[in-house]
């Protein structure tokens, strides 16, 4: 499959994520949208890695060019999972304190 499809898909996902972050007030939805953007980037990483590998393999079948990105993606997913657990914990604490997950209430630092 041509790389363009992956790029367009990733761009769409990223834009959806951005739009969600910008428009939604629910902290959980915003959080999900952030994950969406993260995974759009992950998708790009995997797609380009595969593309490079395929190009290198065509000339040298012993080449491992680009395969390290595949590993990288796993790292990112692990880190993201850790981050999600921390983020969700924060949201839970927030709900306990102000009985809301609306980020527009989180303006206590103003003034």
């Amino acid at each position, binding site marked *: 499959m041509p790389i*363009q499809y992956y*790029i367009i898909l990733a761009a769409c996902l990223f834009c959806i994520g*951005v739009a969600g972050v910008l*428009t939604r*007030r629910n902290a959980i939805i915003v959080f999900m949208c952030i994950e969406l953007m993260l995974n759009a980037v992950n998708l790009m990483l995997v797609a380009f890695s595969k593309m490079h590998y395929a190009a290198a393999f065509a000339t040298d079948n012993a080449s491992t060019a680009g395969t390290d990105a595949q590993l990288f993606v796993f790292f990112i997913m692990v880190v993201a999972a850790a981050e999600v657990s921390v983020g969700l914990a924060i949201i839970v604490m927030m709900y306990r304190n102000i009985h809301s997950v609306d980020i*527009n209430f*989180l303006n206590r*630092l*103003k003034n």
Partner: protein
Amino acid sequence: MNNIAYLVPLFPLLGFLINGLFRKSLSKGTIGIIGCGTILLSFIVSLILFFDVKANGGVVVNYFNFIDVASFQIPFAFQIDQLSVIFLLIITGIGFLIHLYSTSYMHDESSEHFGRYFAYLNLFVFSMLLLIMGANYVIMFIGWEGVGLCSYLLIGYWFKNINYTNAAKKAFVMNRIGDLGFLLAVFWLLSKLGTANYVDVFEQASTGLSSTDVTAITLLLFVGAMGKSAQIPLYTWLPDAMAGPTPVSALIHAATMVTAGIYMIARSNVLYSLSPLTQDVVAVIGLATAILSATIALFQNDIKKVLAYSTVSQLGFMFLALGVGAYTTGVFHVMTHAFFKALMFLGAGSVIHAMGGEQDITKMGGLVKKLPITAWTFVIGVLAISGFPFTSGFVSKDEILLAVLAHSPVLFWFAVFAAILTAAYMFRLMMLVFFGGFRGTHEQEHHLHESPSAMTIPLIILGVLSLIGGFVQLPHVFGGEDFFNQFLAPIVPAVTHEGAEAATLEYYLLGGTIVILVIVYVVTKKLFAVDRFDGVYTGFKKVLADKWYIDELYNAVIVNPLDKLAGFLKNVVEKSGIDGIVNGVGKFVNYASRQLRLLQSGQVGNYILFMVLSIAVLFLVFWNQEIIVQFLQKIF
């Protein structure tokens, strides 16, 4: 011998430093000894130099390079030659007498101000010596500015009187106008010849300079001389400069500083001789100044003002002599004038001292009985300046008249007219002050006394010099030796009046002078040696007494418009223009920040929106646009 030349200005400089720095701790006696002693030492060194130059001729002594840029060099050098040693003797000799006189005249001042006075006076002598001894125009300019500064400081010596400080400012500003001309001339000279050394300039003048250059340079130099030597149109500062102490008027505003312009032109005689146009300008302006100020002097009631206008008039005579090419005669008149005008100023100081500060001659009269030495020395001065036969003034003024006659008969008759006016106002002054009856108050009459010997000794010495000072240049007809002109001949070409025709003219002048002086004596004695004199004038006399309203004219044409312009710039351009811009910037920033402050809403969503928008803008602006285009083409 010439290696001691640097001592001449060094002594007054040391005197200035000691008196200036320690004026609070030194006693008046010490200050006086330092002030006079340094000048006396300078005078002795000047005498040694004089005899050395007389025997061996002039030299240029190089000390170090004052300015040294690539091929362009201004050496700090002294030129000790016939012309400069004569001025050295005048400055240090008369300077010493006036310092001596000052120790007594200024005795009522507190010790600190006494020290300040002598420090200024020594600094003045130092600057004047620098002006005279410098071997190029730049060193001369240092002295030129120095004497202007000292003149300012000494006119405003009693700085608590606002009128005196205004007079000082006027003198300074007028001098600056002239100095600008001088400076431009030096720049012109440097750009054309690349040197300001007299020796080199005069050597290259006829080949390296076009006639336009020479005319422009000499005219600009003459503008400098106009300021310093008080010629039309820059003369009005000199009468006002009488605000200073009287010895200062004698030293700076009669004997030495105001003759700097004459020295400069005599020094540059090679240049001036190359430009007949400038010579005519110099002669005409000199003559016009001589007549104008003589007419003003006729109706002044302030003893120092009369002498001040007389000085302006005599300076006019000197420029007239320079203008007709008789440079040595101009210098000679500087010397004789220094004798008799310093004498008369010091005499006036003695009179003012005796009168308890009174300067109005309508309140004087008959002082000859109470101040005999002052009176008779003053009479000698009056005779000398009026050209009484065989006094110093007679010799120098007759020589000027003869030189003018050889140049142009029209100018000659105007010059004779000015000379008659000179005799008239001088005899009037003498009669009003020393003869007739006393017109002041009883206290003043009771207070009258002859001055102490520190004041009368300089008067006597100057009186003797005024009488016999002319004999160094007595005309051949009367058995003279022409010593002065011959001495100066290597530096300044002399105009000699030889032959039977000159002799006849001398006799005519001698006879004419005697007739005129007798008439003037009789008339002034009848009019002014009186018991009552109100000194109020009407009609044309009032115009003369009010100085032709020249000061008012200058105020109306130059000073007031400039004041108005300055006021306009201050109130309109500065207040609403410049201040408006500055305040406007401040107000705009204030307003804009108040509006921008609203962006910080505290809503996370807003911040993120701005971040996304900004990043999008950055992409558009900074990304290589071709890559984007290619990329988009590939995609779609």
